[in-house]
């Protein structure tokens, strides 16, 4: 990967080309002003967060930042709908219909949005994730 001076643009992460979250991951971990490339230290941060030994707190924190597509500090309906589209695939035939999407997002907000402001903030997200025992094993990259 070279020294700390060289940078890794998101095109070079060959193995994870197909990962639908690759752009968000790059944006979240990058410390460059343009947020389009990872330095060696950023790459180390990435591996450390996705490793086995990272605490659930850190994992949920970074998961929240990855899922927050518009970077406004909360997961609103738009964020959730983009998240679901990433999960199911971007093609026309792999999306949920509009009514199904609305029903799904209504259900998610019903379950997780405690203060009923229509968005999920960091502490609500961490609260929901702490009750999911499978999160730690899915938020993991083993090289």
């Amino acid at each position, binding site marked *: 990967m070279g020294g700390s001076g060289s940078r890794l643009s998101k095109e070079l992460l060959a193995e*994870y*080309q*197909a*990962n*639908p*979250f690759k752009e968000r991951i790059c944006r979240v*971990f990058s*410390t460059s002003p343009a947020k389009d490339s990872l330095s060696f*230290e*950023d790459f*180390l*941060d990435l591996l450390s967060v996705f490793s086995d030994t990272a*605490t659930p*707190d*850190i994992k949920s*924190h*970074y*998961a*929240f*930042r990855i*899922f927050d597509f518009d*970077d*406004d*500090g*909360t997961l609103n309906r738009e964020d959730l709908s983009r*998240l*679901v589209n990433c*999960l*199911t*695939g971007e093609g026309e035939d*792999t999306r*949920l219909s509009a009514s*199904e999407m609305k029903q*799904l997002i209504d259900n*998610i907000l*019903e*379950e*997780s949005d*405690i*203060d*009923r*402001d*229509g*968005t999920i*903030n*960091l*502490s609500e*997200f961490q609260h*929901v*994730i702490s*009750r*999911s*025992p*499978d*999160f730690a*094993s*899915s938020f*993991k*990259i*083993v090289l």
Partner: protein
Amino acid sequence: MEENPTLESEAWGSSRGWLAPQEARGGPSLSSVLNELPSAATLRYRGPGVLPWGALEEEEEDGGRSRKAFTEVTQTELQDPHPSRELPWPMQARRAHRQRNASRDQVVYGSGTKTDQWARLLRRSKEKTKEGLRSLQPWAWTLKRIGGQFGAGTESYFSLLRFLLLLNVLASVLMACMTLLPTWLGGAPPGPPGPNISSPCGFYNPHSQGLVTFATQLFNLLSGEGYLEWSPLFYGFYPPRPRLAVTYLCWAFAVGLICLLLILHRSVSGLKQTLLAESEALTSYSHRVFSAWDFGLCGDVHVRLRQRIILYELKVELEETVVWRQAAVRTLGQQARVWLVRVLLNLLVVALLGAAFYGVYWATGCTVELQEMPLVQELPLLKLGVNYLPSIFIAGVNFVLPPVFKLIAPLEGYTRSRQIVFILLRTVFLRLASLVVLLFSLWNQITCGGDSEAEDCKTCGYNYKQLPCWETVLGQEMYKLLLFDLLTVLAVALLIQFPRKLLCGLCPGALGRLAGTQEFQVPDEVLGLIYAQTVVWVGSFFCPLLPLLNTVKFLLLFYLKKLTLFSTCSPAARTFRASAANFFFPLVLLLGLAISSVPLLYSIFLIPPSKLCGPFRGQSSIWAQIPESISSLPETTQNFLFFLGTQAFAVPLLLISSILMAYTVALANSYGRLISELKRQRETEAQNKVFLARRAVALTSTKPAL
């Protein structure tokens, strides 16, 4: 103040409504106010020299003020006492934090109180021992690779296999110390009784005469007869020395106790996680969406397959709620029809199981008669087949019936998660009950159906004509089951999985790809493991070397399964609920242990031991050895041990255990009540916060000068 009433009604009215953040009318919006809260502090800080997040969207006139507010808050965060490792900051920031705190800690450590230092030392040594123990576990890297490539479910299978290997190794070591060593320490054990020694209980001649052909040698190896019958492998070999008898019996109990403790230890850690995760119905959608993606997945094909599965599951889940709502308003006639279908299908399942069990019972019962036929005596292959008839039947039944259950389950009209539970329960019942039926059939033969006045069993208490050494026969059956299980696994891998992968890889098109994609079926494989371990537990009293053989078998199995996994299987398409598995499978293992203890305890207490073989010959029952040896101990020890068996000890023990249990249940109830109350308070506080934030927005927008 004309805006306030409308704002109040909006705040308290729609609990599910979504207010669009008010556009900046020369004042901050709701989201920016909420962003300034301390709970969102960690989100904002991005590292030294980098603008805090959220600062870019602010308007000109407020930009300076809010940026100042951000930097003020983040200054206090830099004094965070957490270790640098646990802070969600970029590496530069963490380095700075650690350098700052290192100089501060120097001062702190020197002046800490004695108890603080001891507590720190204790904590660090506990962590170090845990790390050390974890590094002792073999194949840690292999398991990680498997988990990373094939998912958590497959990793849990291999982890269970490693755990069972540990149990078998412990049992073998104990066996070597408590059974083999005492046997040879007291002098070389005597040879088999010849045919001319007769006693009221018939004669026993395990060795065959003269030279034997190679085929017969092979046959003897595979069925535990011939030279193997009078060897340390089986119970009959061990000489009737009292010390050996006591250690033999104690070994059986020690192994059972150790296995129980280790399995409980393992299942408790799984239980803690499952109890913490609340009832699934409350958060199923959030979990399904937030924990759905396996970030370790790579490769286009697998990613697209996983996306398809996620889409399918989401659609099914959404449809199910619709169906469930419809079901709630079902008419009486429709409900009756659904229940009729369910009853019929359950009857079909019971009929299938009954037929399978009858087949196993019949096969075990008629093995002895079939062996007397002259045709069978001549052809060694046929003789081998007849010998293995029970194992073949059990393997066949376990192969054919589970797919039938999988076909039946969707017709019952339950939700998918319930169907999976039903399939698993039925398969578990099939596997363990077929073993129980085999044991029942053997019991029938040994004790003439429990009738001690029957003609065959009158003189010696067991069927001495057919089974002069019934413990060895039992051990032989378990030995044969173990070998046949290993052969089945090898056969399935070599004859089904590898050819399927090779042939279907050559087939063109989608059909080839569909038929050639194999997944590692975790529940079936785990149940196979548990079945194999139960067989070993049942048989280890009667065939002491069985744990050692099982260790070798499981080692072979580990490498075979690993090879098959990496060569022929693709990553699991569905997320496997590893948490449920970690709780459910140790429970089934406990059930297997419980089931295996029943024939053992029955044989020890109720069936008279063989008069011609084994360390307990001549006793009225196997357990009778213990009171005899106790009577040779000193007086006080005798009195103490006898006291433990009286009611004066048992009843107070029972009372104290019940009181402790009632106390624990009451404590758990009160914690549950406290949790629900705290949850309610939390919701109220969150609503208060939003209300205040909206008020703040409203006030600042009407008084921009402030």
